């Protein structure tokens, strides 16, 4: 008897059929991978399971009982379906502990027992190997920690089935490992998990069964042990994807970007962000530099400093030989430095605005006629170019970006910066949530831009990606550079060791 | 300043109900003028048309030790307990414009009766249009005491004239010129080709707006007579020029001046304070000379 049975689920949005007959069958205690390319309908199906959205048709059975189509999220939660959504759903102004126990706070004499709640939260967090302060306001956590809070919250609920929609997209190897251990524990307790990820290696590592969706339809399902990663890719995308490796580079002799002793102290009340300590390196024209590090290593902070989003305390930045004093992102952009931020919902998207407006925003100056009038024809052509280049899946460029699937939103943001043709392009977790096929497209675009002479900095927590795209890899740990490796010399062990302990494994001093 | 008397006349507080209203603004100017003549200092408070504020302002003033209070109350009943407390402490209290009622102690009053003012307007209508008239009334801020009392006078006066005097529309202009303009405009539109004989505006500012509306609608002030209230200089000028028919004079200047004189005399020499009631008079072109502010008309 299956724990969950979803049959022929359909869901339409204006102009889009998100699900046109999706089915999913999850057995008790199994870890079930739900696969599909961006926009295939995974998140939509999961939201229908969790009660966040209603469906237009189909049948749901859970635990041998049919589920009513108009259940609220809390009713589904009570039934035992707990969900970790792709886009975070935390309370920004409440503390970690309050988020963990929202609506289920421990009471004493009818009133909330804050002390007890804090202690409980601390225990849960410790269990998960997180040493987060339960009193911190969630708005001040970084993306990875927010993800971990979501996971911890799910742990505190009584669940028979936990749905995880791309839980590892924002995580670095250390947290991924924690999560995998958690999934193992859940499975041992007989709790089933639906697991969505675009990192197919994870599927091989922790999942038992899989289901593939394409265009909102059921395509295939089976046991993970029966298929290879290439098989899964073919099922998802319908073609083979060539995994690109950075072609031999032609690095110009002069550095485009020179970073010289950049330091930044973290304010006492700044929960997010790391201190940067004397960071120096160069990026050459045509070169792709990858920054590796664990969550909180300071890569995002460095990117923000380079981009003028945060102030530095000391150090100098030179662009094409000229010293820069950048105070704001606007100045960075006009100097030729662009950044794709890592937190797309908070820092990138204007969710209610159209895809076209989102995509063109930073480059409006070059799309404007005299008098500041936007040349909408040129703008539409730009959108069309990137729609094809990055295979952005959208019903119309006038649709709100918030109606796109997560991966497609990410592509729009990448396009926004790529369209600027900057001298230095910094991408922070560029393929967060992007499917394998599109990932190859993104990489290809990065290669093309580098070969046109752009200097590219790629920050990624996915080691295989860093290794695939970079010419050179710089490893960060706690705000310092702990090593620089040529791509040819890099392997995962060395990188992990540099990231986690600060020295290479065999320990001959570098 | 006269020596010696200064101490006795220290701490005179005057609390107005709403100092953004032209009526009270004019009153305040006369007050300041009279105070200078008498050589006394007064502290002016603005109740901002809010009884609660007026009460607590008075209490705040009381804390600093005051000798006399002149009050133009927002609402005659709401101030009673505050004035009772002041009188209990031997503070001299008088009212202007509107009588304070419902307290333990009687409060001497210097003012004109709004109801009678309204009636004076109606009487003019009855006298000028013996065969009856169609009347439009444009009222002050809804709920304000001046509006309620003046409307009452108008209604009583017209009713006394008989059924021929018909109020065809009664709308509020919120005491403001622009709103009176548009509301008058709309009333005229609603009547189509016909027009009312008289528009009674319960303050002069609104009468100015009504005049604009009449002109804009293509009528003459011969066809529609406009009456105002308060006899402000601008209105007096219009009356002189024949545009406005009349305005009710309540002589705010005289009210406040005599109140202040009485208070000062009482503080200095314990002269008992005697209430003074001013009869509202209707200022027309013929009686312009009786208007207290005729001197301000350019």
């Amino acid at each position, binding site marked *: 008897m299956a724990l969950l049975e979803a049959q022929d689920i359909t869901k339409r*949005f*204006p*102009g889009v059929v998100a699900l046109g007959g999706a089915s999913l069958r999850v057995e008790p205690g199994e870890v079930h991978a739900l696969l599909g390319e961006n926009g295939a309908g995974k998140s939509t199906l999961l939201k229908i399971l969790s009660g966040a959205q209603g469906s237009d048709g189909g049948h749901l059975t859970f635990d041998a009982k049919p589920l009513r189509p108009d259940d609220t999220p809390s009713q589904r939660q009570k039934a035992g379906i707990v969900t970790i959504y792709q886009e975070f759903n935390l309370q920004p102004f409440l503390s970690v502990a309050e988020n963990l126990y929202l609506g289920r706070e421990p009471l004493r004499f009818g009133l909330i027992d804050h002390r007890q709640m804090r202690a409980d939260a601390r225990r849960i967090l410790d269990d998960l190997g997180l040493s987060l302060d339960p009193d911190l306001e969630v708005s001040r956590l970084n993306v990875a920690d927010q993800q971990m809070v979501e996971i911890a919250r799910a742990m505190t609920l009584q669940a028979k089935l936990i749905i995880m929609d791309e839980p590892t997209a924002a995580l670095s190897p250390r947290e991924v490992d924690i999560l995998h251990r958690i999934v193992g524990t859940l499975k041992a307790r007989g709790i089933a998990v639906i697991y969505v990820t675009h990192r197919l290696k994870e599927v091989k590592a922790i999942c038992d069964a899989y289901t*593939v969706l394409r*265009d909102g339809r059921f395509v*295939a*399902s*089976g046991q993970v042990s*029966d298929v290879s990663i290439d*098989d899964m890719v*073919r099922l998802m*995308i*319908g*073609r083979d994807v060539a995994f690109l490796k950075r072609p031999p580079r032609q690095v110009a002799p002069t550095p485009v970007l020179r970073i010289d002793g950049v330091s930044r102290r973290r304010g006492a009340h700044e929960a997010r962000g790391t201190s940067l300590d004397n960071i120096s390196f160069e990026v050459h024209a045509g070169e792709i530099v990858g920054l590796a590090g664990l969550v909180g290593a300071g890569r995002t902070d460095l990117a923000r400093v380079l*981009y003028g*989003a945060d102030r530095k305390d000391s150090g100098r930045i030179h662009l094409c030989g000229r010293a820069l004093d950048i105070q*704001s*992102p606007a100045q960075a952009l006009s100097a030729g430095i662009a950044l794709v931020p890592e937190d797309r919902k*908070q*820092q*990138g*998207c*204007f969710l209610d*605005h159209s895809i076209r*407006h989102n995509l063109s*925003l*930073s480059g*409006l100056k070059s799309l*404007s006629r005299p008098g*500041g*009038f*936007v040349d909408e024809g040129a703008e539409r052509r730009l959108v069309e170019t990137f729609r094809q280049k990055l*295979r952005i899946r959208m*019903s*119309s460029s006038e649709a709100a970006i918030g109606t796109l699937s997560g991966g497609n939103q990410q592509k729009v943001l990448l396009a*926004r910066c790529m369209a600027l043709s900057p001298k230095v392009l910094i991408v922070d977790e560029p393929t967060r949530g992007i499917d394998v096929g599109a990932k190859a497209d993104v990489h290809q675009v990065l290669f093309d831009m580098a070969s046109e002479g752009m200097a590219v900095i790629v920050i990624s927590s996915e080691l295989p990606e860093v290794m695939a795209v970079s010419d050179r890899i710089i490893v960060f740990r706690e705000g310092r550079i702990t090593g620089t490796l040529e791509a040819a010399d890099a392997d995962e062990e060395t990188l992990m060791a540099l990231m986690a302990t600060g020295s290479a494994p065999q320990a001959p001093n570098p | 300043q006269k020596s010696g008397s200064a101490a006795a006349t220290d701490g005179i507080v005057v609390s107005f109900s709403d*100092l*953004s209203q*032209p009526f009270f*603004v004019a009153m*305040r100017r006369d007050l300041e003028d009279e105070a200078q003549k008498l050589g006394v200092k007064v502290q002016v408070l603005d109740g901002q048309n809010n009884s609660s504020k007026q009460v607590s302002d008075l209490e705040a003033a009381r804390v600093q030790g005051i000798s006399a209070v002149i009050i133009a109350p927002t609402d005659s009943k709401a101030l009673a307990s505050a004035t009772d407390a002041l009188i209990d402490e031997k503070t001299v209290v008088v009212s202007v414009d509107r009588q304070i009622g419902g307290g333990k102690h009687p409060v001497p009053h210097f003012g004109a009766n709004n109801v009678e003012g309204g009636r004076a307007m109606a009487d003019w209508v009855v006298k000028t249009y013996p065969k009856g008239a169609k009347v439009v009334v444009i009222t002050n801020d*809804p709920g304000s005491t001046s509006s309620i009392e003046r409307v009452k006078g108008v209604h009583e006066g017209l009713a006394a004239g008989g059924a021929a005097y018909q109020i065809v529309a*009664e*709308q509020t202009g919120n*005491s*403001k*010129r*622009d709103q009176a*303009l*548009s*509301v008058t*405009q*709309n009333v005229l*539109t*609603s009547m*189509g080709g016909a027009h009312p004989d008289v528009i009674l505006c319960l303050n002069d500012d609104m009468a*100015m*707006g009504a005049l*604009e509306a009449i002109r*804009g609608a293509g009528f003459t002030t011969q066809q529609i007579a406009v009456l105002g209230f308060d006899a402000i200089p601008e209105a007096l000028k219009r009356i002189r020029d024949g545009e406005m028919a009349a305005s009710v004079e309540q002589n705010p200047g005289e009210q406040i001046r005599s109140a202040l004189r009485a208070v000062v005399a009482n503080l200095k020499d314990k002269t008992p304070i005697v209430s003074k009631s001013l009869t509202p008079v209707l200022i027309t072109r013929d009686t312009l000379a009786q208007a207290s502010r005729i001197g301000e008309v350019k």
Partner: protein
Amino acid sequence: MTATPAPAPDLSAPPAKAPFDTVAFLRTWGTTLFLLLLIIGFAAWNPRFLSLRNALNILTEVSIYGVIAVGMTFVILTAGVDLAVGSLLAFAAIAAAWVVQHMGGDLPQWLVALGVASAIGLAAGYAHGKTITWLKVPAFIVTLGGMTIWRGATLILNDGGPISGFDAGYRWWGTGAVLGVPVPVILFALVALAGHVTLRYTRFGRQVYAVGGNAEAARLAGINVKAILISVYVIVGFLAGLSGFLLSARLGSAEAVAGINYELRVIASVVIGGASLSGGAGNIRGTLIGALLIGVLSNGLVIMHVSSYFQQVVIGLIIVAAVAFDAYAKSHRGKV
């Protein structure tokens, strides 16, 4: 392994467009439809409601606050609010009248007044914007402060009294007409058009939407958020000044009590027009409809001889109904 992959769908084909979409129509035109129904209702009651003269009356009346509502649309798009507009209108008007009376040189009165009122509006708007961005005080507080400060300044300037006595050239701006169309209406149309074009077709307009949609993302997209914020308060300040000039030209008098409660009427116009107070959504067309709805209502109810106390009840009910109607039309978007 159970299934074989199907051939890849063509992801890049742009989708076909539907011929006519009732829902999309209602979503966009809900409030407009409601306004039309209202007009038909009033006209059925009293055909004079539809006379040209009455239409122009309504439009003139709407122009005065409509001009400000255009500026307020910009402010609300950035998730801000300006409570000071009514007081600023009064201050600009009385200061302009004061200058005309006390220092009028050889220049035409209207030119001096227009100059002074605009300059005051611009300067006050700049002060508001600067305080909001630089001292980081919420717009609500800054402009609430501005509301009492400018009202106080108005009362101080002429000791609480009105200033009147303008020449015909001045009055023309409020009472004149060109080809039968009242001057304030023409100005309002120009302001609205300029506002519409700016928001819809310029880079600045896009940036205004972006700042309101997500200020942090806007900053990271390279927009000078502070500059945009300051600009919108300058725009609304300028328009409040202009409106003060128009109102005093219309009344022939600059009054200390002018513009009281305008802020609510103006904000209501914008919000009835579909703008969100949390920013990023709204447009000038909606604001026009909102402003007209308010104007039509207060005109129509007087023409229907509804007693003034009842008018308040009816206006409140109809405004809520209008927005509910619109919300109902919009809520159907997910259910075609």
